[in-house]
């Protein structure tokens, strides 16, 4: 279908479209092979969910003809509106009204009806349904809502390839695709890959040389262990969590004044570095304040739920915003931690997933008992934290919370969670409106995920935390291991990282996902262990070479026919530039900083009120901190980050896109940071060693993390000589070229050589490979 249409549009593309091989799901959609046994979970439900559940699904209010197809009993029952007919008669295709309608072309009879704008089923989908009914129309519980179990390792074609269990599951699919894994990646590229995956930074030349020289079997594992011990590991791991937690340095909304949640961010880094087991990591953040004899650290962790936006707009109706904040907390919890789209049930029963509106408000009720107000006054009375908040003095920090990088004396206040003494009632809100309460509900988690057993779990946030990290919870571990996997491979085993429901994509490797999830829990939710398993796998260590065959069989690399080749995350692009040039100031944590930014951005978008109306750029060390410490003003997030797809931190985000745009090219060519780093690195190399080839090749190694090839050296050398001549002949202005950034110019380096080498380095930074994890 797709191909046909493209044909019609571009005559020229005919050949390409015809050559285009499809991924497996597309192959199924193209209708080549019907499976021997049609599975409800894998074959039928995706069709039903996309095309039928909108009107015949869980949402009672929108249900047509009293028919729901998501439950067997209802689907098998006599139809209320068509006498003597049945939607589905197991084993009898001809008697099944559903089949007749989805296979019909009569617009007054067919399903889905044209006015539903859902499109029609493909002929292959119709055949699948036919076979499924013929085979007995067996329903199954949704895969993601059953607890994961470890499957036995599959038989594979080459027992010598696997390093660990991961590789068995991966090779099973490669065997099915009739393709072999790639060779192991060369050492230089592998080191770059693993260094970015563990620390978000490139390896130093010393590390490269050491690793290249180490020919022992354990050389790679040694490097992995070393990197896992660096404090930069915590920074790297924290970044994804900050997206989930929508961490920012301002309150958002119109006036968007400053707030101080950064000590919570410092805690996240610290928690990853001390390898706090993930179940505790979650428990503290969900309900640290409610633990017996809660420590300051445990209370600080609950800042997680206070990172969302707060309005300071004059004249708002407090209850409207108090409810809005509950909605945000509920969304962050259900999307970021449970991987479900429960927010859809705020106004009505969920259209696809088994979450009623009641389920939604029962979940929201867990967060409804805090001391938080909907409104504390306008921007003129703004404070760095809002009630309830934690107050930390110097002694607290010196004694127990030394991971907080505090710069001055004075008290720190951080918004955290804190319960009321009495129970605030929670109601279902009609259409989700704050001023339309209907039926009262009690706090509980959705039955369809895992019953909230009140003999085990108290009906409060602490109960919710316990329920979340209960080993029978089918989602928590799967969702987190999948997020980690996504971070490394650029794509989750479940591609829809935020949606494990009916409309989410099915896992490409369900047994692998479950194996990882169970193994993670069996190892006491040890995050470093999980990461190391993945990084040591042969799957991960493959070279990224994409042959024609592999591009055809696996264009998106979702079967791991080759190693992961993905663009660096926005923050790590900045970090790479700073680290390779030697400018990076590796201080961990502290108040966020304001490096160079194009003039006028904050000023043109501000209301003019509050302390963030104008951008006051920092100087000195604060110009050279890692990207994750760049100040995030919600209404005007840092542009160079956002252009590289960083989260704007407006809402909980579980996945960043990786786009490729001309604006990114402009940043790499013209951002003063890249230019300054190039100049500083050029002068450093010039002063270190007079050998021009060595200067270029060292710059290349620092940035691209491998030695240049002869051909590359020729291109770079030619460019250098050409530029040097231009500067020496005054065709180009060397002095003007190097005057960029606040880092002092080194007078010991010759100005023309500085400018020429600087331009070579700018070009290296602009190589595609430089900002790729290779």
């Amino acid at each position, binding site marked *: 279908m*797709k191909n046909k249409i*493209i044909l019609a*549009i*571009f005559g*020229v593309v005919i050949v*390409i*479209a015809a050559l*285009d091989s499809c991924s497996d799901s597309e192959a199924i959609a193209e209708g080549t092979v019907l499976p021997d046994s049609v599975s409800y979970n894998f074959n039928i439900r995706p069709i039903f*969910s996309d095309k039928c559940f909108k009107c015949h699904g869980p949402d009672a209010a929108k249900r047509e003809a009293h028919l729901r197809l998501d439950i067997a009993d209802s689907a098998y029952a006599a139809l209320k509106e068509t006498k003597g007919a049945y939607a589905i008669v197991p084993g009898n295709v001809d008697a099944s009204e559903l089949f007749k309608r989805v296979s019909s072309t009569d617009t007054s009879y067919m399903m889905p009806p044209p006015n539903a*704008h859902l499109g029609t089923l493909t002929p292959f989908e119709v055949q699948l349904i036919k076979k499924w009914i013929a085979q007995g129309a067996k329903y199954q519980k949704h895969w993601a809502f059953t607890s994961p179990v470890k499957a036995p390792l599959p038989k594979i074609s080459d027992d010598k390839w696997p390093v660990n269990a991961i590789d068995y599951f991966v090779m099973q699919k490669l065997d099915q695709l009739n393709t072999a894994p790639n060779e192991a990646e060369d050492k230089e590229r592998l080191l770059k890959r693993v260094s970015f995956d563990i620390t978000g930074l490139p390896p130093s030349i010393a590390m490269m040389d050491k690793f290249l020289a180490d020919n022992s079997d354990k050389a790679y594992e040694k490097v992995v262990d070393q990197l896992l011990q660096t404090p930069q590991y915590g920074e790297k791991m924290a970044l994804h969590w900050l997206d989930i937690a929508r961490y920012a340095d301002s309150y*958002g909304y119109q*006036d*968007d004044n400053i707030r101080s949640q950064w000590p919570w961010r410092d805690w996240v880094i610290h928690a990853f570095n001390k390898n706090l087991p993930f179940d505790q990591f979650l428990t503290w953040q969900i309900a640290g304040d409610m633990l017996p004899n809660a420590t300051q650290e445990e209370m600080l962790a609950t800042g997680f739920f206070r990172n969302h936006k707060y*309005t300071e707009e004059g*004249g*708002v*109706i*407090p209850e409207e915003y108090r409810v809005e904040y509950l*909605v945000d907390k509920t969304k962050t919890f259900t999307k970021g931690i449970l991987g479900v*789209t429960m927010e859809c049930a705020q106004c009505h029963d969920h259209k*696809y997933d088994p979450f009623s509106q009641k389920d939604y408000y029962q979940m929201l009720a867990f967060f409804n008992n805090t001391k938080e107000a909907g*409104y504390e006054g306008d921007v003129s009375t703004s404070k760095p934290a809002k009630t309830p908040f934690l107050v930390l003095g110097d002694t607290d920090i010196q004694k127990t919370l030394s991971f907080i990088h505090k710069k001055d004396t004075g008290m720190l206040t951080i918004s955290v969670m804190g319960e009321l003494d009495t129970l605030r009632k929670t109601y279902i809100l009609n259409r989700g409106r704050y*001023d339309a309460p209907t039926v009262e509900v009690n706090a509980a988690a959705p039955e369809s995920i895992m019953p909230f057993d009140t003999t085990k779990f108290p009906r409060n946030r602490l109960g919710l935390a316990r329920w979340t990290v209960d080993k029978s919870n089918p989602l928590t571990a799967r969702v987190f291991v999948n997020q980690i996997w996504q971070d490394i491979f650029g794509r989750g085993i479940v591609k829809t990282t935020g*949606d494990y*429901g009916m409309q989410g994509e099915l896992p490409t490797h369900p047994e692998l996902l479950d194996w990882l999830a169970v193994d993670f829990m069996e190892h006491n939710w040890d995050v470093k262990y999980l990461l190391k398993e993945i990084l040591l796998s042969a799957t991960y260590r493959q070279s990224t070479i*994409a*042959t024609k065959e592999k*591009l055809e069989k696996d*264009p998106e690399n979702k079967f791991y026919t080759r190693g992961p*080749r993905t663009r660096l995350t926005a923050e790590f692009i900045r970090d790479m530039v700073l680290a390779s040039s030697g400018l990076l100031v590796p201080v961990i944590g502290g108040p966020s900083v304001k490096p160079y930014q194009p003039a*006028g951005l904050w000023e043109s*978008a501000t*209301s*003019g009120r509050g302390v963030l109306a104008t951008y006051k750029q920092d100087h000195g060390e604060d110009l050279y901190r890692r990207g994750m410490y760049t100040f995030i003003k*919600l*209404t005007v997030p840092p*542009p*160079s980050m956002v252009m590289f*797809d960083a989260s704007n931190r*407006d809402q909980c985000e579980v996945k960043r*896109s990786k*786009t*490729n745009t001309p*604006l990114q*090219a*402009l*940043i790499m060519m*013209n951002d003063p940071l890249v230019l300054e780093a190039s100049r500083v690195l050029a002068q450093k190399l010039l002063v270190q060693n007079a050998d021009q080839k060595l200067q270029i090749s060292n710059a290349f190694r620092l940035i691209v993390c491998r030695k240049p*090839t002869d051909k*590359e050296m020729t*291109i770079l050398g030619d*460019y250098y000589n050409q530029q040097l001549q231009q500067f020496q002949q005054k065709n*180009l202005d060397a002095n003007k*070229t190097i005057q960029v950034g606040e880092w002092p110019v080194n007078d010991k380096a010759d100005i023309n050589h500085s400018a020429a080498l600087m*331009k070579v380095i*700018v070009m290296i930074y*602009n*190589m*595609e*490979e430089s900002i790729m994890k290779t």
Partner: protein
Amino acid sequence: MQKEIFEHGLNHNRRKFLSQLSLGIGSVALGSLLIPDLFSNNNPDAIMAGLPHFAPKAKRIIYLFQNGAPSQLDLFDYKPKLQEMFGQDLPASIRNGQRLTGMTADQKKFPLAGTVFQFNQYGKHKAWLSELLPHTASVVDDLCIIKSMYTEAINHDPALTFFQTGAQVGNRPSMGSWVSYGLGTENKNLPGFCVLLSKGKGNGQGVYSKLWSNGFLDSFYQGVQFSSGENPVLYLNNPDAVSKADRRNMLDKLAELNDENYKTFGDPEINAKVQQYELAYRMQTAVPEVTDLSKEPESIIKMYGADCLVPGTFAANCLLARKLSENGVRFVQLYHQGWDAHGDLPSQIKGQCQDVDQASAALITDLKQRGMLDETLVIWGGEFGRTNYCQGTLTKEDYGRDHHPRCFTVWMAGGGVKPGVYGETDEFGYNIIENPVHVHDFHATVLNLMGLDHEKLTYKHLGRRYRLTDVAGNIVKGIIA
């Protein structure tokens, strides 16, 4: 047919195409000449069968957003009753339980405040306009004045977000993103969706980049902030010491380096990257050309007012909007701040009108004289209206007005709208009595004018097919020519 399917197919094919040629970088340039759209991804007109869904009346939009909410009662919606009943309390039967903002909810009285400005009728349709809008009056026969807009939000942030994204909260795609997603741009060297900011002297409410965010759409569709200053697009300008020829030289060498890598790894993304550098290079020429206002003739400068030569003013942005539109930019979004007059309204609104009246009217005249008005939809209005009663102390000369979501005025011109006055409010200017237009209806209608069916322009995200109009919206047939 779903657009996403085509996009996926196209991306897929683009990669495929590159990988199968295996001829390296040179062939990319050749290929892009042969089939530009395959590479630029910039002209989904050609990509999408069935889009636009029907013949469009407008090809482009210029949206002059008046951020902070101008008072309809002092500009468009003439209510002599409020002058007659000056100082008397708003009857409870009229307020009818309407919620108020925290700023006036505690007021003991709601004294009616008639406007201090003179109103007169203008044009074929005898439209009432305030003395503050003399230039607008001169183009009134081109305007479709909708007096019966209403919204659900009562505070700036949610109301503005609602107008721009179809939802009060959340990170949904902006209207401009939806339109460029649906229709692409006509000029592949410029972004399809451009944003221009300016500020008046009145009480301001900030804007925020979420308003022009692509939300869950590809970031290709996000609004790109433009200015008429020296660096019209962020990071656009080469450093001073780098000439155009110098940049070209560097890009050629860079392409050689990238080609080396492509030969080894075969990742089609490598070539796609090279292509983006080429597009950036073309933008470096195209953008300064379009943002350079210095070559505009005297007559144009006079029409927009002298302010149009001052970068960052509303007048300069109107002129820039015309140029962008003329160069094929699909959606130009302006924001002008300063309309939030809770107090001191008569003096503040005077200043605001001085900023915007002449340039708004000039834009209409200018588009018309270039034969562009027919296919360019111009929209003018704020996020809600203002109350008929006074906030704070009422005197004969001075008053303030609070937020009022129940009725307000927006005008449109060109692009297939029917000039005239649409909708009516009650004699207090408090409730709509005829032809209400909800924000969703407004969106449905604007998309319709662009040839898009608001129920069919969808994007599937996290399991749901999202629309600009959510699950609502009716086309306002009465304003379509």
